């Protein structure tokens, strides 16, 4: 009997320990569930997008078709702009400019593995906290706080549907606790039966200019041979994950596109030859939670863009420098970012 009791107690201890340790992973599992749900479930929802003093109603429709996600994001009461991601391309309709920007879709094959996803490294950069929240849209929710450990990234507060882990509400919070962007769903259908017709754009594109980026270069997982520009010193936790040459719609010249990620937040850097007009001033731009910093160096314009604080895009943009192609081949691959 005593032996049974001891075994039983051992069992309780054994069960209890992983549970205590599992507190953080559970929050991380919720983050992973959310990411998976957003990427793989079928859904159709209306949400209010708020950034600064601007609010706009938008609709998102997402479906899996033949194992690939297709989606449409449309502004309902603002510019009327739409983004449609088809199996092969991304179309950005700008009725206010009478322009459709087209670029190849970029999530094929091995590239996916290099894309930002919640991982163990997250714990050194963010603290995750999970708690029960009030009901939203008639559903039970868990509230997940993703708090950065430093000032180089934003925090997120996510209200996740208990059943599907879909974010019913999300806020991007800066270092002072101010919400820089909020997305608040007012209606959300999740599950099969999302009508594919809702993925079609409603914009009448008669007379629109179609600006096609074209496939100037396939995306490549980052490595020294493909990168002619490399960071000298990065904000902690950010590392180069993808380097590619691409034509960005709206720009006549193909440019280098580098993607840096800390596992959750990501920053894109676009490098293009500078116009012959002479040096332009550095500029910082804010659009909702996205910051951009543009500067000129070595005859190029370097622009960093991402949902991170202004200082982070600035630090990343100004840390880049051209490297000799031969030299970069003999170098080791860019490792984790320096501190």
């Amino acid at each position: 009997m005593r032996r049974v009791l001891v075994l039983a107690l051992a069992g309780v201890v054994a069960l209890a320990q992983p549970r205590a340790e599992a507190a953080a992973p559970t929050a991380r599992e919720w983050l992973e569930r959310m990411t998976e749900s957003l990427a793989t479930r079928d859904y159709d929802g209306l949400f209010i997008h708020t950034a600064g003093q601007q609010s706009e109603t938008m609709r998102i429709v997402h479906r899996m078709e033949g194992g690939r996600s297709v989606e449409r994001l449309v502004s309902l009461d603002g510019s009327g702009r739409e983004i449609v991601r088809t199996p092969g391309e991304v179309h950005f309709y700008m009725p206010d400019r009478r322009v459709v920007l087209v670029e190849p879709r970029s999530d094929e094959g091995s590239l996916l593995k290099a894309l930002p996803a919640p991982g163990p490294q997250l714990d050194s950069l963010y603290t995750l906290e999970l708690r029960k929240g009030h009901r939203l849209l008639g559903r039970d929710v868990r509230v997940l706080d993703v708090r950065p450990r430093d000032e180089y990234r934003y925090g997120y507060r996510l209200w996740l549907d208990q059943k599907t882990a879909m974010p019913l509400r999300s806020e991007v919070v800066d270092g002072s606790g101010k919400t820089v962007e909020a997305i608040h769903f007012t209606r959300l259908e999740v599950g099969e039966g999302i009508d594919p017709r809702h993925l079609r754009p409603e914009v009448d594109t008669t007379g629109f200019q179609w600006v096609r980026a074209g496939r100037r270069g396939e995306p490549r997982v980052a490595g020294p041979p493909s990168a002619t520009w490399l960071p000298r010193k990065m904000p902690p936790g950010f590392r180069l994950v993808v380097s590619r040459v691409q034509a960005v719609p709206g720009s006549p010249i193909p440019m280098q596109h580098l993607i840096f990620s800390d596992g959750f937040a990501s920053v894109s850097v676009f490098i293009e030859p500078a116009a012959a007009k002479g040096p332009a001033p550095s500029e910082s731009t804010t659009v909702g939670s996205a910051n951009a910093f543009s500067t000129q160096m070595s005859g190029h314009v370097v622009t960093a863009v991402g949902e991170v604080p202004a200082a982070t895009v600035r630090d990343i943009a100004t840390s880049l420098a051209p490297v000799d192609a031969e030299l970069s081949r003999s170098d080791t691959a860019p490792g984790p970012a320096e501190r």
Partner: protein
Amino acid sequence: MTDQIREQISALLDGELASGEISLLVRRMERDAELRRAFGNYVLAGESLRAPGGLTASPGFAARVSAALEADGAAVTTPPVTGRHAPRRWLRPLAGAAVAAGAALAAILFVPGGGEGGGQLAESTAVPPAMIVASLPPGGASPTPAQNQRMAGYLVAHGQYASAIGRRNAWSNALAADPGITRVALEIVERP
């Protein structure tokens, strides 16, 4: 200077002043040299000076702000089509009353660092330059259509490589890019 004006300047620098009030304040600054000086001091005092990462204002900045305010008094109503300084290039194709007010503010706020700030930066890529940031209110200095399209293009391309929630946020911002955009002119100074 009344408390109300102080509050308005503070709100302006925090990006919280309504566009109608921005126009009024700008018109007032146009007439009132003391107000322009006070505004320069406010900028220096740190209400609008975001010095991320411990960056600091250059010595003499207040004096140069004041000088710029004096010099740009006329530019408040008629931003130059081609100024002496490259930074003003983005003042050109603006339209609309609120935008015009914002452009005027940009003329006031931007303190050219001798006209070749970008060039200085280009030569000192290893060290992030010390810089002074004067913020404009949201919508204060609207980008040109080409700039807007470019920013939206960046966001769309960036969104393709962001996490699932990052993509949704980036693309939402691209859809909403027009009204909510804030542009900030930077003065680059050498780190001592």
